[in-house]
């Protein structure tokens, strides 16, 4: 035990010399090869599933895609506002159902085929039209982002027109989302189902090689029409294990990593590294089962909101990598966020009172916790801390942990009959997406939505439907703010945290910033 009192470094130095002394030591190999300037090595959290933008859903994959492909529109740096991309300009009809895009001229895909209106039509038809000859290169899980598109027309070589069934305010924002990135039709035709491993886009980088489980390499596109990329190549290394990722970062095996585990952040606060943070449209919450059990009572739901020490979670468990969430809409959607909304304070006494009032003391709760997952941060420690908080005010919480896919398989069909609460997090590109998909009555799981906790408030339903078809942003903002106030009071969820995305780079990396969209634009990054 005395060993433990030694300082960590000296402990290991001692162990190392002991190992050497006993002859077990390994001769130090030549100091590990440093990667050359101009080659940026990025530690990813997983192997990409595919590099076909229409086929993937994970932010991890998006981080690679946005460097190879471009969409008609894109998010302006540092914001979630839409700016021109492959389309130079666009017009929206007054009724909000026709979008006409003027395309940039002279853009070539990496395979040398031209980018034009036919290519755009090919992309959207492939995703949306079941009869399209290449629809079988799917599935396209996020095709519903464009489900309002009735047809895509080629007006002329550089003009394309989308006709929507009904006005759909998030349409432009969805186009900027990676699902809207434009792929080379020629490459899809050539590779079919294997296109996802042989991606061809128009972006500042082109795909070089994919060594399974080792790396995806993209290199500078010398023919890029815009400003050339700052590095010669970027290597994305999938390192699923956070701890190994940190170790790689510390030992110089990678130049940059995203999603730094909060507990490891302190390692990078010193010399040699820089930590980059950026808040984004993320909300981490607990779905409460409002249909049955203790949480059918609004007072109990509010009690849960009071009982949980969110400051402790964001500041201690997450080491300040998140902020306390106040309501269902993250502050990153600045125009739609209600600044006046105050988070539920940590007030265990109040929680106890509410519980007593509802007569729900000692309520037994089943709590679904996931082991990890997109945007889930540190779900087990967070869940454990939440459990401790809830138990402290008189709940009796039992955790069941599931691997992410199993977890989704349990949660998405609804909590009824299984659980009282479940962890969940969403990263979205529009204030419409999350509440529309997860808070409306019509979004209950049996109707194909994600309202797994069966929250239902006709007022909220109406506000959301209105906001979706409204054409003016101000009008939408008012509606969303109204919705936030109601939802916060109804407490269908426990609002826990808004994540500040982070990344660490070595000091050889310059010009690196994170985007609120959670995408990873590396075109301007320089590595010395």
């Amino acid at each position, binding site marked *: 035990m005395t060993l433990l009192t030694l300082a960590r470094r000296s402990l290991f130095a001692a162990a190392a010399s002991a190992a050497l002394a006993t002859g077990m030591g390994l001769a130090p190999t030549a100091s590990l090869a440093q990667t050359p300037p101009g080659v940026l090595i990025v530690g990813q959290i997983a192997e990409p599933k595919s590099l076909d933008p229409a086929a993937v859903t994970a932010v991890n994959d998006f981080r690679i895609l946005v460097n190879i492909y471009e969409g008609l529109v894109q998010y302006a740096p540092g914001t979630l506002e839409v700016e021109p991309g492959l389309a130079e300009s666009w017009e929206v009809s007054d009724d909000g159902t026709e979008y006409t895009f003027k395309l940039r001229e002279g853009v070539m895909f990496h395979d040398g085929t031209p980018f034009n209106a036919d290519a755009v039509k090919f992309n959207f038809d492939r995703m949306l039209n079941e009869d399209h000859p290449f629809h079988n290169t799917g599935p396209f899980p996020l095709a519903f982002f464009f489900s309002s598109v009735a047809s895509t027309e080629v007006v002329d070589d550089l003009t394309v027109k989308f006709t929507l069934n009904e006005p759909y305010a998030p349409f432009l924002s969805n186009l900027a989302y990676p699902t809207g990135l434009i792929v080379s039709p020629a490459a899809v035709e050539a590779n079919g189902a294997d296109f996802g491993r042989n991606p061809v886009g128009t972006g500042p980088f082109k795909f070089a090689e994919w060594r399974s489980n080792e790396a995806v390499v993209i290199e500078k596109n010398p023919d890029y029409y815009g400003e050339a990329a700052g590095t010669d190549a970027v290597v994305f290394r999938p390192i699923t294990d956070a701890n190994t990722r940190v170790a790689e970062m510390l030992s110089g095996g990678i130049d940059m990593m995203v999603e730094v585990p909060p*507990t490891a952040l302190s390692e990078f606060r010193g010399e040699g590294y820089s930590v980059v943070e950026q808040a984004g449209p993320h909300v981490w919450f607990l779905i409460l089962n409002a249909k049955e059990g203790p949480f059918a009572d609004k007072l109990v739901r509010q009690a849960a909101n009071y009982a949980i020490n969110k400051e402790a979670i964001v500041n201690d468990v997450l080491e300040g990598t998140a902020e306390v969430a106040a309501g269902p809409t993250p502050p990153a959607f600045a125009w739609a966020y209600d600044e006046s909304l105050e988070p539920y304070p940590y007030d265990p006494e109040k929680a106890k009172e509410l519980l007593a009032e509802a007569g729900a003391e000692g309520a037994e709760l089943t709590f679904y916790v996931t082991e990890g997952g997109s945007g889930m941060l540190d779900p087990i420690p967070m869940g454990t801390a939440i459990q401790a*908080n809830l138990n402290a005010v008189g709940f009796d919480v039992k955790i069941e942990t599931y691997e992410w896919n199993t977890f989704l398989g349990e949660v998405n069909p609804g909590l009824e009959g299984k659980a009282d609460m479940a962890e969940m997090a969403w990263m979205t590109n529009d204030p419409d997406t999350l509440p529309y998909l997860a808070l409306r009555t019509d979004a209950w799981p049996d109707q194909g939505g994600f309202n797994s906790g069966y929250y239902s408030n006709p007022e909220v339903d109406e506000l959301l439907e209105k906001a979706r078809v409204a054409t003016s942003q101000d009008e939408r903002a008012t509606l969303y703010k109204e919705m936030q106030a109601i939802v916060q009071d109804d407490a269908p969820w426990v609002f826990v945290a808004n994540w500040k995305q982070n990344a660490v780079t070595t000091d050889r990396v310059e010009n690196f910033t994170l985007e609120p969209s959670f995408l990873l634009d590396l075109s301007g990054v320089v590595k010395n």
Partner: protein
Amino acid sequence: MRFLSLLFRNRLAAMGAVVLSLIVLLVLLIPVLPLQDPDVTNTADRFLPPLSEGHLLGTDHLGRDLLARLLYGTRLSLAVGLFAALIAGTIGSAVGIVAGYFGGRIDNVIMRGIDMLMAFPYILLALAIVAALGPGLLNALIAVAAVNIPFFARNIRGITVGLAGREFIDAARLSGMGHGRIILTELLPNVLSTIVIAMSTTVGWMILETAGLSFLGLGSQPPQADLGSMLGEARSSMITNPHTSIVPGIMIFLIVMSINLLGDGVRDALDPRLRSGALARPQARTMVRRKAPLPADDGKGLLNIQRLETQFHVGKRVYRAVNDVSLHVNAGECLGVIGESGSGKSVTALSVMGLVASPPGVITGGAVRYEGEDLLAAPYESLRKKRGEKVAYIFQDPLSTLHPLYRVGDQLAEAIQVHHRVSDAEARAKAIELFRSVRIPNPESRIRNYPHEMSGGMRQRVGIAMALANDPDVIIADEPTTALDVTVQAQILSLLDDLRRERGLAIVFITHDFGVVAQLCDRVAVMYGGRIVEQGTTTDILDRPAHPYTKRLMACVPELGGGKRELAAIPGLPPIVSDLPPGCAFAPRCHKATPACREGEIALDGGDARAVRCIHPEEEIA
């Protein structure tokens, strides 16, 4: 008690027992120890280092007290390991016993199934089971138990197959027992100790495997601590706060190590072979610790055994296998040594070239002189050079005394090549020649046989050829024909007799059969209870046995040609050499015994030509 003292004689096992009982004690004392609640979080105090105020081992990533979590976690992990071992042991053993007992098709089907399970990567099987049943420590326990069933089934089946062929199982069947009862009352008690040993040695392993599953997040559910999940949770902070990993890691290590140490100790203590010292590795030569002064060289014979004393030291017991035995043999002479099992005849023979397994054998006195040189005192290398070259052995059971994995020709060639620098081809030619000289037909092809491919008689010829390989001066034949059929025995004996005459060999021939002695030997020494009781020429002894034992022994062996008749029996049993009576060892069975026979040493009376160790000999010897 005997078991415990055996167990703790093993210092490592004792250490394991101490560490394990300390851990178990701590874990049992959990209710009374002033521990904090292991599940209460205090995120402000997270990652406190060990020896912090109020937290002896520090805190984890949620500010929970590591000491409390460690003890609760240890309790859980121990319980899970134990139960998993119990479940796997019970089911696996049951499967193994059934397969091994019934054999045939049932065995085949079961073992194929076990093969399948074993071919399935065990971690994946466990993973799949947990995925199917849902996470949770109980399910992890089931998974770990399930994947270990094949291990037990295979082990126990192997032992059961051996037992099921034993005669007591047949006896039980003839006693009217059914299959179920035979399994439960005859087989189970015999495999139980193996099952217990296997369980005790696998508990540690089960703990490791459960920890592995928990480590992958498939074990205990938060906030419950078990050692694996503690390690898994601590992993993300391994670099920043290694103590949170090291604490549970060391605990797993301590538990598994102490269980392994203890398990080894239990296995060793239960193993009867270890108790008898049989598991000890025999040294290259028998240990010599002479207490009495070296007897002076009396110049007798080519090989001269003088006042030899060989004992076996097993624990505190001393088996006096050979007591004050003096024998000598001249060139061209055949000396017979006759006696029943336990009389010390074989040990005497093996002592000559230091071949008594040691431990436990020790030569405690006397000398063995070859051409006057005391072999017991000779340096090892000099002794080794004489083995096979000057003095060669023929052993009893040629199947177990020939190396099963070498061709007989190679074994023969080796015997030559260890003493003489000859090429392989020459050695091979010599081997063929030797085969021919012991009348093995087709020697050119027979040298390529393995021992198991030959019949008993042929194998023994190989044994003889090997003894003859270097033209030794003395051959010590230790019951060379006992394992053979009569017709083959006759051939071998006549072969030995011819060889001795042709080559002028000195033979020491050990046997229990008077008929054999009569036909082959010039002189005979009769041994009983580790001593020579009578010696003389073969004719003298056969015609006029002087010692009552010799006389009665000869009488009780039926001789062919007498038809159905009553046999003369000697009452009582041969003595056990660890507990020899004072005086004459035969006195308790002797009809002539007087009180004088039961006290004090009785000397071997007479000369080299004829001597007897008896106060009331049957014949007066000159």
